[in-house]
């Protein structure tokens, strides 16, 4: 089997898995709905009671999870490819830390509502990413310097967040902690629409940038030789990746690990070299939705945010994966 067919196969399998998880997610809960009825309802059929449960209560949350997962997976693949670093993720340009600091500031100091917190997070995240990029853009933003400056700026922002957490009431600290962890609890259609619109714009742009991204992986000089405008392409890619992350963080908070793990897992499934953005995106959707389904079922009454689940499972899974691979002597 060639790598290309394998990649297509994996992509199709992941899409199928994502759809199956969606059906599972909206079909189970306090009222169980059999899968065939779920599918019928999703495509416009079903009785009124079923469609209320599905379309009003459960579908928005599941869709938000799937779409955010897709955004995070795609942005992680782009970041890891540009930085040529398997640990590259939006955190390295300080996005997550900037968003968290701004959101915690909004929650604790200004007592802002959901929209203000989301807007603050996006402004904080994008502002931080721009600052990091500007600080490292001297004689061309090299991947290496970008990472270092990202670490410096992030550490300062983490200090700001920690400071705010110690100067707040315990209730505020709890609200802030939930936001920082990343949660899909209580998501409605008003959360789905902005994410869907943003993805409808950003994903086609990403598709257009795949070719330059593939060339950039060969090294700046080679890419230039192949006719790629290196600096401009890289800037465009960073912007798209930051945009994708911003969408995800604004609607669910900074859910860790999906952006980091999805590209790694997808790559191990496809055995492809290259960025593999499409499979990574689908993998991201599967991971996030799967984690949300699992955490709702396992810790029903505690309402633990999905970020706890993605973190624990993802960390354990990655550890296991690395050990197994190294034991076999590859990688």
């Amino acid at each position, binding site marked *: 089997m060639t790598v290309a067919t394998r990649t297509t196969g994996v992509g199709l399998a992941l899409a199928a898995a994502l759809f199956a998880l969606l059906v599972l997610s909206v079909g189970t809960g306090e009222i169980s709905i059999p899968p065939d009825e779920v599918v019928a309802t999703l495509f416009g059929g079903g009785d009124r009671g079923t469609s209320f449960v599905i379309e009003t209560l459960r579908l928005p949350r599941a869709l938000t999870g799937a779409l955010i997962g897709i955004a995070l997976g795609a942005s992680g693949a782009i970041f890891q490819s540009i930085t040529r670093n398997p640990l590259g993720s939006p955190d390295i340009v300080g996005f997550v830390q900037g968003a968290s600091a701004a959101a915690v500031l909004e929650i604790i100091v200004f007592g802002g509502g959901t929209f203000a917190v989301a807007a603050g997070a996006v402004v904080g995240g994008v502002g931080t990413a721009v600052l990091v990029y500007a600080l490292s853009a001297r004689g061309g933003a090299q991947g290496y*310097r970008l990472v270092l*400056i990202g670490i410096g*700026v992030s550490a300062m922002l983490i200090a700001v967040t920690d400071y705010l957490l110690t100067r707040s009431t315990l209730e505020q600290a709890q609200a802030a902690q939930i936001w920082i962890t990343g949660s899909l609890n209580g998501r409605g259609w008003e959360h789905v629409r902005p994410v869907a619109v943003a993805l409808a714009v950003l994903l086609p742009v990403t598709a257009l940038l795949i070719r330059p991204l593939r060339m950039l992986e060969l090294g700046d000089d080679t890419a230039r030789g192949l006719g790629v405008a290196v600096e401009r392409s890289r800037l465009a890619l960073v912007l798209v990746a930051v945009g994708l992350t911003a969408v995800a963080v604004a609607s669910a908070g900074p859910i860790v690990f999906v952006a980091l793990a999805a590209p790694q897992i997808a790559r191990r499934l496809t055995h492809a070299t290259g960025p593999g953005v499409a499979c990574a995106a689908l993998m991201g959707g599967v991971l996030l939705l799967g984690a949300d389904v699992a955490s709702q079922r396992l810790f029903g009454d505690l309402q633990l945010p999905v970020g706890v689940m993605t973190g624990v499972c993802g960390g354990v899974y*990655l550890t296991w994966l*690395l050990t197994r691979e190294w034991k076999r002597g590859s990688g």
Partner: protein
Amino acid sequence: MSTRGTGLALIVAGLALVLLLSVSVGARPIPVDRVWDLVWHPDGSDDAIIVHDLRIPRTILGLIVGAALGVGGALMQGLTRNPLADPGLLGVNAGAAAAVVTATALLGVVSPLVYVWFAFLGAAIVSVVVYGVGAAGHSGATPVRLALAGTAVSFALYAYVQGLTLIDRETLDQYRFWQVGALAGHAPALSGQIAPFIALGLLLAFTLGRPLNAIGLGDEAGRALGASPARTRILGAVAITLLCGAATAAVGPIAFIGLTVPHVARAITGPDQRWVLPYCALLAPVMLLGADVVGRVVNRPGELEVGIVSAVIGGPVFIAIVRRRRIAQL
């Protein structure tokens, strides 16, 4: 005089200065000459009590924690040949944090003098796990593997910490003050508890200068020069665990000291680890205590925790170094 000699003299002078300032500056300032008197002849006055019961223990704690973080960071960067390595990398902070929340949430431990042992144990166990994962298979613990393993394990542990702090309010309340990283408010006995571990870690670290230099040239070249890469890595990992584990257990995670100080030291001494390690042991306390003193001044009569000050000052300094010159290669 050589650059190394001049630098060393300056750092020792700086250390003497911050030690004095750290005892003298605070919500109740005490003039330096009076401090000097009181140190040797405590007269039972309020000032004497502040100096002996609060400021001197705090300064000693800063001195040993600073030395531990600086040398731990330098060792970690030398071993992993990764200029970005810091105590967070091998899972030390995550292990300590997970142990602290476990002790408070599940076992009801509230005294810092008790949960410091949990934190230390957590840091040690996690370092061993990370090393074990990184060393799986034939080719051993390469730098990239250790970094990947540390990140993966930290992810899981931090999520666990978040989960526990969300379920249990009391734990969140304790944890938020621990994780900020402070030298203030600790019992004087704390320094005595962690000092033996840090002393042992420092001794071990200083014996590793030469083998670190050798394996810095690559494992093959290191072997040819008579150093055993595997042995050096294991001893180094033990030293890092002792140093960073004890420091983080005592005062909470403090960003930037372990990451930045070795870069500054290498900029002065060059890459020779036999110089870098002792430099870090002296330079890091200067930075940590300096940050602590600044934290007492900027927000009078309140204080800013040293973890915050070190990040807010260390961040721009670090960025300036990165922008101005190429990071001294390992």
